[in-house]
């Protein structure tokens, strides 16, 4: 299995807080990895580093065989350029907890914006692509709706379509169902489940909902204080965890 994501001795601090501490992590191409763990354990930071929204302090992050934040030049490391970051960002897409749709654009314009401005497709081509993606996520009748007029579940499906429109190799999902009313979780989960059948697409999913983890994960990683405490297939980590900290976390989650 070729690794598509590789963290090697990555350290990330915010001031005094060490969020990732000499962190190692490997994800295989096409793998669906679910990250669970208490709030503040660094799960979002891990995804945000991959999306280049946060810089790391030391170590190496490789995506699809290329370094993300620093380049090794012989024995030296050099910070990367903006153009290299943009080259790397093309490989990764991200969906956020609060959707972060552009409020001044319709659903169609939101989804078409990437193909149009980044992939430089014609307006007609971009919109045709956006329309087919919106149909795929069940929003074929909401093309002209502005985000403010869509439910949370619908907005999140637009956001997923928007990220997919750029054909990323890796999709990052940061608690994408956490801001939704319980009855809307299902429609977003269905879209993600459909997506998870795409074998080549790598998915990294942060969630507090064990149902989501069970439905999607090849592998579940339990995260605490920027360290991987336990990992394995969902049946094992969720239903039969070995580590006492995983056990107590899961007990707390299941109570809610």
């Amino acid at each position: 299995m070729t690794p598509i994501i590789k963290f090697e001795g990555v350290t990330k601090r915010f001031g005094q807080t060490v969020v990732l501490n000499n962190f190692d992590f490997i994800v295989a191409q096409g793998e669906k990895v679910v990250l669970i763990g208490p709030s503040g354990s660094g799960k979002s930071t891990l995804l945000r580093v991959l999306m280049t929204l946060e810089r790391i302090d030391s170590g190496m992050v490789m995506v699809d065989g290329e370094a993300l934040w620093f380049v090794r030049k012989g024995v030296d490391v050099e910070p990367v350029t903006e153009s290299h970051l943009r080259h790397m960002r093309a490989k990764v897409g991200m969906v956020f907890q609060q959707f972060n749709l552009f409020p001044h654009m319709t659903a169609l314009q939101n989804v078409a914006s990437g193909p149009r401005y980044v992939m430089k497709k014609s307006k007609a081509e971009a919109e045709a692509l956006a329309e087919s993606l919106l149909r795929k996520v069940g929003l074929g009748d909401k093309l002209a709706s502005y985000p403010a007029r869509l439910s949370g579940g619908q907005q999140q499906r637009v956001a997923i379509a928007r990220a997919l429109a750029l054909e990323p190799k890796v999709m990052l999902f940061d608690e994408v169902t956490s801001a939704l009313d319980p009855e809307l979780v299902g429609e977003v989960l269905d879209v993600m489940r459909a997506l998870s059948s795409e074998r080549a697409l790598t998915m990294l999913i942060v969630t507090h909902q064990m149902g989501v983890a069970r439905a999607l994960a090849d592998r579940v990683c339990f995260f605490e204080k920027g360290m991987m405490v336990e990992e394995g297939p969902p049946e094992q980590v969720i239903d039969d965890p070995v580590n006492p900290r995983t056990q107590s976390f899961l007990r707390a989650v299941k109570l809610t």
Partner: protein
Amino acid sequence: MQVVWDYRMLLLQGVWITIQVTVTATMLAIVLSLLAGLARQSNVWLLRTPATVYVELFRGTSLLAQLFWMFFVLPAFGVSMTPLLCGVLAIGLCNGAYGSEIVRGALRSVAREQREAAIALNFNRFQAFRIVVLPQAARIMTPLFGNLAIEVMKASSLVSLITLPDLTFQARNINLVHVVTAPVLIVVLLIYFAIALVISGGTRGVEHALAKGRDRLAA
């Protein structure tokens, strides 16, 4: 009301000058607001520092003094401009300094998450600004620029003090040669008020266009 009618041509000429000064000075003020507001956000000090100096200088001194300076003092240094150009420049520069704060505030009010979404979509910096940040900031700026335009209109009466025959200038002249001036002054106030109404109406139109279907319910 006979006086008003007798002096209608003078008053109309005055209105025309007031409108000219208001429109051009507002445009100048908005352009300067955008440039200075953006420059003050920049992390390039060569842009930031001059912008800050400009804003502090023009915001911290009286507009009338700036106007007199341009009209009476600059010619001594070989820079002489027509009264109209002086008026437009002084009023535009001064209000551009105020307006830069509008731009700065509006840009800051666009949520960080929006910029992050733009990065995640792999927009370059310029695209993120033009496609994501600016349209959202424009919506916040529009009513504030409307207010600025009304401030500019009110300030335009100062040009009467540098010999430019605007509405206020004409009113004062009529006042000097005529005994019954109350009707003239009432009409002058009404004209200013009417211009302000037009500006507010236009501003609301732009706001409406920028809002599109966003937070209105389906018609």
